């Protein structure tokens, strides 16, 4: 990223806050074993359904309380960041590379390749993706790899459409013509010259899709079709916490708040990034 853009981004305090929170979440996910006070999967039956520390009956041992099996809520939330970020970043990476790569190809080469890929993207978008994802995950069974692939399958057309449009515009510019005149081959022109110039647009979409991917992961895990039951994940926590909503509200409230803050941070950063890259878009 150009330093001028980055400076403009840092001047936007909301976007900076979003960036800081995102970095914090990543650090929490990476250092989860050192940060979590307990093993998130290990329960203690004597400490079942303990309320958060500041409520009556709470204990400093479990600052955010425990669940029906006596597992520490804080530790589960900390480890849950791993599932969300792994799936979220994985989906954006895979769907971004596949969709973006095919978009560059279609936009530069045009012709039959473009027709075919565009049709394929349109067909994919014609499906209500959450329903398709639920069906696929229901049949394949829960799993982080399955989930990442299924969500990427639904996500690539968004990247494809955007990058294809950009690549068509870029292909007509003088620098591409110059590169071609200098005898550069199609592949380097596409994946180096044009890719460099559409990278900013790509990043904005990638941020938006990251928020959506995190929310989709949570929804699918909530339904039991996402992350496997033994792996701590926010969606799963909310789902099992819902059974105790009348006696132990923190079990569903805390992980949901964790999702909300992360997605809010991602969206704030994305909005700031868009404004910084193209100040004209600002209202």
């Amino acid at each position, binding site marked *: 990223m150009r330093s001028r853009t980055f400076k403009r981004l840092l001047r936007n305090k909301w976007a900076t806050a979003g960036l800081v929170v995102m970095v914090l979440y990543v650090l929490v996910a990476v250092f989860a074993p050192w940060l979590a006070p307990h093993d998130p999967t290990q329960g203690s039956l004597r400490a079942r359904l303990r309320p958060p520390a500041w409520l009556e009956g709470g204990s400093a041992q479990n600052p955010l309380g425990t669940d029906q099996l006596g597992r520490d809520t804080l530790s589960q939330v900390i480890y849950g960041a791993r599932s969300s970020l792994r799936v979220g970043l994985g989906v954006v990476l895979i769907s971004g590379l596949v969709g973006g790569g095919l978009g560059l190809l279609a936009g530069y080469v045009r012709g039959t390749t473009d027709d075919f890929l565009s049709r394929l993207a349109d*067909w994919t978008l*014609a*499906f*209500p*993706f*959450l*329903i*398709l994802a*639920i*069906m*696929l995950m*229901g*049949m*394949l069974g829960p799993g982080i790899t399955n989930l990442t692939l299924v969500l990427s399958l639904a996500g690539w057309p968004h990247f494809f459409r955007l990058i294809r449009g950009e690549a068509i515009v870029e292909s007509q510019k003088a620098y591409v013509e110059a590169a071609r005149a200098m005898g550069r081959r199609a592949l380097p022109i596409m994946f180096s010259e044009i890719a460099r110039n559409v990278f900013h647009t790509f990043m904005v979409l990638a941020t938006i899709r990251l*928020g959506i991917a995190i*929310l989709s992961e*949570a*929804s699918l895990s*909530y*339904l*039991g*079709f996402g992350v496997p039951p033994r792996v701590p994940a926010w*969606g799963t926590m*909310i789902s099992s*916490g*819902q059974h105790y*909503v*009348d006696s132990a*509200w923190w079990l*569903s*409230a805390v992980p*949901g708040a964790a*999702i*909300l803050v992360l*997605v*809010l941070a*991602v*969206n*704030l950063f994305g*909005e700031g990034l868009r404004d910084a890259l193209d100040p004209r878009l600002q*209202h």
Partner: protein
Amino acid sequence: MSVEFLVKRLVQLLVLAFVIAATVFVLMRLTPGDPVALMMGQDFGVTQADIDRKREALGLDDPLLVQFGRFMGGLVTGDLGRSIVSDRPVRELLLERFPATLELTLVAMVLSFGIGVPVGVIAAVKHNSLFDRLIMGINFLGLSTPSFWQGIMLILLFSVTLGWLPSLGRTTYGFVPDHVTGLHVLDSLITGNWEALKYSVRHLVLPAITAGTSYSAIVARVVRSSLLEIMRQDYIRTGLSKGLPFWRVVRVHALRNALIPMVTVAGLEAGSLLSGSVVLETVFSWPGLGRLLVDGIYARDYALVQSTVIALCVMFVMLSFVVDVIYSLIDPRIKW
């Protein structure tokens, strides 16, 4: 709108429906595991011979193309097979659950436009005011909230803490209105069953608010930004400078031109409400198509799952068709 356009779009719709059905068929066959073995379970003395017999009875040993032909034939004639778990025709189950999803979707859409349009208009007119910023802030929060969690938090507040509203299901036992349309609120109005009306509405409030508010954020955003764009146009300035009242210009000249993006959002919204119904109906134990799909997957009820998915997908595709038709009706400039 030309007949040619309608026919062309209808053909596209049919092709798309065929592709959807074929995709679902292939995906269901590609997934690992023998459905019959899963269905019958390993214990209770089920032998391989039993499984083989069942496979043959269900026609699962036939060549894939034959199975596909039978499957498509069934779809066309409306024979969608039997649900294994409830031992009833799938078609019956779909028809029974559809009104619940429709009712929730309709009420949620009315709610989201009822909130979103006025809020978006005021935010645009009072551009950059405190109200505008507040609205955009709440909007941003709404877009970042997982709606299923918002639903549970509403249950926590209104059902558990305050005890005002029921949290689960569509009616209270014993207060189901006589079946006319299947939409409970409408049915109780038609039959004059006021008790049933009360219970139906009370059950609708939380799920409808959950679905409606998350979309009112999107509606408000779109209305605001398209109005801001339109209010800068010359004809608006002309209208204002020839002395037309401000709100008349907004209502008659600006809002009408903001209809196109609003129809787009409405179409997208109805589509995602359909998808989202799977999650929200689970949160509120709402007996609609989404809930039927989830229960079908849990029970490995293949016939039920594939038909429900196809039904939801086809409804989704039909929505985009309706949106296209509405476009050409409200904007004479659009021609195909």
